[in-house]
């Protein structure tokens, strides 16, 4: 896609702005951090990682500030199909390219790699993209070797409140990362386009051979409620294995988020489980 037109950038990286956090993360990993990013503060909270000082907040992701973009001299604006409604207006101030990871169906990890390559080509960093993919693959392979042989399928959940969870299936970022590690994803039920399902806790009762992995942050009070909940304590997956607690990861991110998640999973699998005295079902520390 229009790759030829952008080779001129190879020496001088283009000024890129984006509203998609997965793409922002990937651009940073490629060494072309965006100069404009939608909802920077929220990005820091949910995706994490360093942002260069030069990066400016450009407003809400669905409505980036056009007057500001106009004044910022943007060369390239990248978005995902979710933000397609922005294309026409942004096209008036910069070249617009759409890169799709979660909307296209198929294997998420291949989509992540393809998306990274597309972005790399767009900003004139094809080699950096190839290197990033190779490095990530190598890292994941190393991590996969450290996965204990008896690792059960993982049931990756994120608590919304004390009664509901987002549970991540195979076609989510988390599921794809687990697949790379050679770990099964326990949730095989229906999921949305982003690979998760929003379900009340009791739906997890049907899954027995699995280990629960809770992705932080845990909403306030949920830990207390759960340790007092007979039903949670008796869920087959909670009974069968210690509950694993994973540091926050952005579930709709790019290759780097996936890699980070894989690293955290392997670290948690190899660390000693719950400290004595704390609720077996939901260790308060990781």
């Amino acid at each position, binding site marked *: 896609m229009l790759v030829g037109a952008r080779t001129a950038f190879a020496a001088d990286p283009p000024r890129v702005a984006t509203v998609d956090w997965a793409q922002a993360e990937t651009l940073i990993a490629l060494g072309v951090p965006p100069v404009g990013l939608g909802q920077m503060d929220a990005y820091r909270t949910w995706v994490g990682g360093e942002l260069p000082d030069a990066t400016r907040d450009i407003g*809400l992701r669905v*409505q980036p500030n056009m007057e500001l973009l106009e004044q910022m001299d943007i060369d390239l604006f990248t978005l995902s199909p979710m933000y*397609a409604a922005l294309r026409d207006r942004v096209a008036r101030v910069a070249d617009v390219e759409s890169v799709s990871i979660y909307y296209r169906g198929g294997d998420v990890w291949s989509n992540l790699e393809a998306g990274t390559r597309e972005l790399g080509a767009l900003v004139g960093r094809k080699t950096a993209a190839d290197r990033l993919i190779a490095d990530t693959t190598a890292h994941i392979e190393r991590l996969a070797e450290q996965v204990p042989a008896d690792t059960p399928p993982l049931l990756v959940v994120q608590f919304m409140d004390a009664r509901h969870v987002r549970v991540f299936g195979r076609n989510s970022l988390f599921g794809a990362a687990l697949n790379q590690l050679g770990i099964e994803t326990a949730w095989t039920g229906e999921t949305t386009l982003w690979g998760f*399902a*929003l379900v009340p806790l009791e739906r997890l009762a049907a899954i027995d051979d699995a280990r629960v992995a809770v992705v932080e942050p845990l909403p306030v009070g949920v830990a207390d409620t759960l340790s007092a909940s007979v*039903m*949670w304590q008796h869920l087959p997956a909670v009974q069968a294995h210690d509950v694993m607690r994973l540091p926050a990861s952005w579930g709709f991110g790019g290759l780097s988020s996936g890699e980070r998640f894989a690293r955290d999973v392997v670290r948690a699998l190899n660390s000693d489980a719950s400290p004595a005295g704390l609720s077996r079902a939901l260790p308060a520390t990781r």
Partner: protein
Amino acid sequence: MSIVPHITPARLCGLFALVLFVLAVSGLQQVAPGDWPGAVFAPNPDNIRDILVHYSWLPRLFAALLGGAGLGLAGVLLQQTLRNPLASPTTLGVANGAQLTLLLATLFAPALLVHSRGLVAFAGGALAMGLVFALAWRRALAPAVTVLAGLVVNLYLGALSFVFILFNQEQLKGLMIWGAGALAQNNWGGVLYLAPRLGLGLAAAAVLARALAVLDLDDVNARNLGVSLKYVRAASLAVAVFVTACVVAQLGIIGFVGLAAPAIMRLAGARTLAARLCWAPVFGALLLAVTDQVLQHLTGASAALIPTGATTAVLGAPLLLWLIPRLALSRTTPPAQSADPEQRHAAPRRLIAWAGMLALAMAGIALLIGQGADGWTWPLVDAWADTGVWRLPRVLAAGAAGAMLALAGAVIQRVSGNPMASPEVLGITAGTGLGLLALIWFVPAAGTLGMLGAGTGGALITLGLLLAINARSGFAPERVLLTGISVMFLFSAVQRIVLAGNDPRTQAVLAWMWGSTYHVDLTTALVVSVIAAAMLLLTRPLAMWLDLLPLGMPTARSLGVDVTRSRLLLLGIVAVLTAAATLIVGPLSFVGLLAPHMARLLGLSRARDHMLGSVFVGALLMIAADWVGRQLLFPAEIPAGLVASLLGGAYFMWLLRRI
């Protein structure tokens, strides 16, 4: 006024109880095939099926029953107290008040939620209700004023919540599930919390019942009987709010049950207050429990959460539409606004000229002053290419939308002689919103043109519905408004379901729904401006009707007005105006309610002056709202419709206090 003679409250409740029993037994057999009585009464802790039945399925059933009963009770009390068959626990802003305080606690003081979640919700509900009371107190909590105050407080608190949701979607995802009334339980805590509180509410209602029954008489007769109406009403409202807040805190926002249970029982023949107090809680309990059971059967394996509270509201909307022609409204209509309470301004022309000049000045400010990459900037000749091209369409569109909503509001307020009337209340804005919502959901990459089309489609469907349902009553204003309120019910319920689903697409939906001028291009802005001007010219010759219609149907008819036809034409104009404006500023702005009010209070009482004055005030408000919204949290933008609600709502509340 029962529809089918042999329906009685007892028979209807019996039927629902039977349905519930069948659903519950078949549900139980799905959860724990085989020995379900054992699971219910003596659960085996080693068997997950028993645990599920005992700690999840059963508490959920009881929570639904208790919640429904509480809302039914609150509904009866409110409807009796406000003498309004369509009052409901949410009318007083209790639910939205609780939502706002829970939201603030989640964002700024999460520790508060650990042990006192209920208290936080209750405080919010009580504060919202207190605000409503404060606004209506000077009029001795007169029904019409109380309902109006409730409407304004509701919209205001809702708008405030939306601002936070727009910027903190991830942090608030749990609260959104609560806001849609998901009934899932995983212990008996909720039931044990609700049961004694509901008992307390029932006892208080029993004590108040006799005094409340007097409210069926009119004020003068009741006072002659020695009942202090003010205090009985206040006590009854307080009980209703207490019960509602408990249910809301525990189960989330559950629409429609508080409204429907008393109304259906009344139609089924529960004529006395005592009968309604007995049957409405029973029916409310059954209604919510049946809905919840059906949903549990249906949503079996789906990936999206379909919360019960919002679903009852979605199901309720058609029932409400069906109920409207069957409600006896004559007795319960809020007393008409006194004919002309405001002083007529001596020189209306000069006043209108002033308003027009102010609107123009605001447009100038919005075009020339704003923040950019280097902070605040004053106009420079070359900056126009950077900023003006973006600002002009927005200012133009905001002005036109404000003007159209104001004009629509002025017309509908005069046609109905009802101060609560506004295009928002007519439901056309909500219909437009539903159309947009459907598009964003089913056509992920739709462009601006598609959105315009879908919005118009939604508005037209609503209009058709409005006309079809009200044709027989000759477009009686109260019934037209009730139709609109039903559509709003549907819209807010669908919106809650969307929010609870917490799909990454939600933010786009929110930004559109809450009225941003962001997506307007110059062509659209010009088209909308032309429509606004054309409609203004079109309504000028109709001013005579608008002077006569507020005098009441008999008077207007005797003066030679074809009431039905004139109402139909005027409503058609209102619909077109509203649809065009909603596409720009969303379904939630106050401008259609506010601008005509302000114009009238300034002393513009003749229809011609009133309309023109409203148009300028509306344009001024919306341009100001759009500009403030773009500057306040720069570079993030708050949708103009939201800012208009916040600015306008504050003014309106201040105004209400003085009516």
